[in-house]
């Protein structure tokens, strides 16, 4: 099962109810968290993707299990995230990260990672990084990536402060990656 922060049961409901319920549920979701919407309305797949695009949230993807659609949407405030200044000085391009053979650390939410990541990339969501730094080696070169470079900017700063010596923030992030994707979902 893909990890999500808030779950909404919209099974058995017809259009426009899954959208109406999703809008209401989103009010209880915090910025950056992932909402899982469970629905049986076949139209909800196209509708929720379109809704997220209209409203400005990130539609991550949908999986189907036993006739139930599980949609994943990450709450965003596009104006806020675009306005955040990136401060970490050591940056790298996607090409540099890929050709280095060093560790690529993906700090997006696990749901985002599950729907497609760079093959071999290690997943530690931004919010878990502080407690999981012991999984990483302080001397090794690490390329930190997220979707647009904002979360990875913060993560790179955290790692450097914790004594890591060879950290790069990958820009622009997965939003600019066009290579092969490895997925955890069918």
């Amino acid at each position, binding site marked *: 099962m893909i990890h999500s922060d808030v779950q909404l049961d919209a099974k058995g409901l*017809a259009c*426009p109810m899954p959208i*109406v319920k999703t809008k209401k549920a989103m009010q209880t979701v915090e910025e950056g968290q992932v909402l899982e919407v469970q629905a049986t309305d076949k139209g909800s797949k196209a509708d929720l993707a379109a809704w997220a695009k209209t409203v400005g949230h990130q539609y991550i993807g949908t999986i189907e299990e036993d006739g139930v659609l599980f949609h994943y949407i990450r709450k965003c405030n596009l104006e806020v995230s675009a306005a955040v200044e990136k401060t970490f000085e050591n940056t790298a391009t996607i090409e540099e990260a890929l050709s280095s053979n060093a560790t690529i650390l993906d700090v997006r939410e696990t749901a985002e990672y599950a729907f497609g990541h760079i093959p071999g990339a290690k997943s530690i969501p931004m919010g878990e990084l502080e407690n999981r730094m012991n999984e990483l080696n302080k001397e090794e070169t690490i390329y930190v990536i997220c979707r647009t470079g904002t979360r990875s900017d913060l993560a790179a700063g955290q790692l450097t402060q914790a004594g890591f010596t060879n950290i790069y923030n990958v820009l622009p992030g997965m939003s600019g990656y066009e290579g092969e994707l490895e997925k955890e979902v069918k």
Partner: protein
Amino acid sequence: MSNKVAIIAANGGLFDAYKVFNIATAAAASEKEVQIFFTFEGLNLIHKQGMYALEMPAGKEHFAEGFKNAQVPTIPQLVEMAQDLGVKFIACQMTMDVMGLTKEDFVDGIDVGGAVTFLEFAKDAAPTLTF
């Protein structure tokens, strides 16, 4: 991009009601500002008693079961939901005068206005829809 959706509801059947309120609630849930102008038979859709007894088109009554099976909300439920989401209802004053109806005949929270009231809202709405 316009953030307004303007809808004219001019027909009073059950199918008409679903078209109007499904689009209206979906738009409102997508953070659009929505106004519906109810005129002529469209006034049935927000009439306190009338909205409970909207008719299917002749010969289509067998769809009643389909509505039930698909768990489609009832019209009174959609009306409440639409208002809850901030959809604004405007009843047409002229039609009300012709039909001898007053504001009290309709669900609470509506505005009564003339064509210009609606046109003022609709002038920069995209889309404007007529049902």
